[in-house]
């Protein structure tokens, strides 16, 4: 019986881990994409995530801009779409205002890194000042429409859903249940990552981005509009971060410091190999699994420690990550 329980927990946590990992993957891929083009760690990436989360929250609950005009509550589709575009726009704006002047002046990525930290502090504190630092929960029923669609699709395969309060659960047999939300975040992540992959492999701009990841200068010499290309990359990164932001603020709560969670996405990107998109996905899934398994079997306080130990072990064994270019010192 005890072993049965253990097995159920294991299975349950693997599913939770994959779902969490897929959210990390959305964040890590955007971060890695920027890294692959400009080779600097964009610490403002967490800011884009928070922007996405707050736009979604604001539109879902209806905005009241100091009594001048009010925006009625949107449904999740529209609010989500606006959040993605808004975060993408903020990402492009950040690049244009803060990074572009530095990029054009020097080749030292260190300055970009510091500027990105500044941006992340600015975004975080704008939200602290404007909307306040308290924790906000996204309304629990926002995904009802989406869940209804999902329910039909999964019902087609004969999976029965049950409701416990506001959370939808699926019974996978035995005592293993999956929440609808976990399935949803997994599906959305797969869709968007697949879409990104198609964009990078099948379009001219995708080709240009892949070329720029190889060598930005040469890509420019080959006639690629580098400035526009970087804009597109930042937009994509912002959009992906916003999806991550919406899911994270639903999973936990929304607060201005939520962007700090990107540290884990950075760690995931390093484990997979900085600048490598498949690496970012693999690293994120490993991280999500590690986090959830340590929650299930050790304690939830230890999960962050497990994450960072994983980073150290990876750096010891394979500093370039699973898919990274060999960067470690050869001297």
């Amino acid at each position, binding site marked *: 019986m005890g072993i049965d329980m253990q097995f159920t927990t294991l299975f349950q946590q693997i599913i939770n881990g994959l779902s969490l990992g897929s959210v990390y993957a959305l964040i890590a891929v955007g971060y890695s994409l920027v890294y692959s083009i400009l080779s600097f760690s964009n610490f403002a990436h967490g800011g884009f995530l928070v922007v996405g989360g707050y736009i979604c929250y604001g539109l879902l609950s209806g905005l009241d801009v100091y009594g001048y005009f009010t925006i009625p509550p949107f449904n999740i589709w529209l609010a989500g779409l606006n959040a993605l575009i808004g975060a993408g726009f903020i990402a492009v704006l950040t690049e244009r205002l803060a990074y572009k002047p530095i990029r054009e002046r020097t080749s030292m990525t260190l300055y970009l890194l510091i500027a990105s930290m500044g941006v992340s502090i600015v975004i975080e504190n704008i939200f602290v000042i404007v909307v306040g630092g308290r924790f906000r929960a996204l309304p629990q029923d926002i995904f009802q429409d989406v869940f209804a669609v999902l329910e039909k699709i999964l019902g087609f395969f004969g999976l029965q859903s049950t409701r416990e309060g506001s959370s939808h659960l699926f019974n996978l047999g035995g005592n293993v249940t999956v929440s609808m939300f976990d399935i949803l975040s997994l599906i959305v992540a797969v869709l968007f990552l697949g879409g990104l992959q198609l964009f990078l492999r099948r379009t001219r701009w995708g080709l240009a981005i892949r070329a720029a990841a190889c060598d930005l200068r040469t890509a420019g010499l080959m006639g690629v509009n580098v400035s526009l290309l970087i804009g597109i990359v930042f937009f994509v990164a912002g959009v992906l971060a916003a999806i991550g932001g919406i899911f994270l603020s639903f999973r936990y709560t929304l607060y201005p410091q939520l962007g700090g969670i990107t540290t884990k996405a950075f760690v995931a990107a390093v484990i997979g190999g900085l600048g490598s998109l498949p690496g970012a996905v693999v690293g994120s899934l490993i991280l999500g699994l590690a986090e959830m398994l340590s929650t299930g079997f050790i304690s939830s306080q230890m999960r962050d420690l497990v994450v960072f130990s994983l980073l*150290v072990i990876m750096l010891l064994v394979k500093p370039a990550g699973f898919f990274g270019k060999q960067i470690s010192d050869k001297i």
Partner: protein
Amino acid sequence: MNKNLLGSAAFVALGAALAFVPLSGYQEGIVVLLCINCIAAMGVSLLTGFTGIFTLGHAAYMALGAYTAAIMTVRYGIHWLPAIVAGGIVAVFVAWLIGIPTLRLTGDYYAIASIGLGEAIRLILENWQSFTRGARGFPGIESYSTRPVSVVFFTVLGIFMFNLLDSRLGRELKASRDDRAAASLMGFHTPTSRMKALLLSAFYCGISGALLAGYMNFIQPSMFDMMKSTELTAVVVFGGLGSMSGTLLGSAIITSVMEYFRDISQYRMLIYGFLLVVIMVLRPEGLLGSREIWSFFMPASDGSGGARGRE
């Protein structure tokens, strides 16, 4: 040699001024805080500005120093002076353990590893309830960081640092920062010198943290989070990478500005972040670039004092 004596004398004069000019209680507090911040900034400057290792986790070494000193004085009744030094030594020991695997990394990889390790140390302090009292914080530390104590620590460590930069090790570090391969070809064992830089910077941060514990009388792990690490590095970049006097100047300015805006603390961080971006856009080389402050007053020198800009 003459130059070094002169510099040391200037430093002692600065220290004496900080220690003996009559100030109100509030101003005294600022002087203590200034000394504490400057000590930590010097440590980070050695690593980031002079060795080219970009760190985002040095608040953890401050935390180690702070907790070591606090636990030793409060729980074991040890005198504060050995406790402060022990704080530095514990930081050095942990830095050594961490340095072995991570110093092989370069650039952003090291930066992210240092974030991870810094956070890991903070999390350990937070979860080791029985020893550190965890997130509730560690109260009741005696106020040993008086103005004379912190000024003396600042002066001694400052003189040591400026002489170090002009020593063989200092040149070794600068050489390995500018071109690792060339420095190795010159016969320097760059991994060793990088390790030395890390250990020294950890020592400075440990001492600074131990002094901070004695100044605040209360420490908690969240005081040493990633934000604090960012601040340490930002101060160094603000002052100018590769300029120790710039680091001190930058640290003094940032400390005073933050103190000045204490009343509008909501906007304080916003201004701070904005300042970081603006400085990077307008003057990325920082206040003094890679020059030391006295090189502005001296006639064009031989250019050996690290006055060449880093492109």
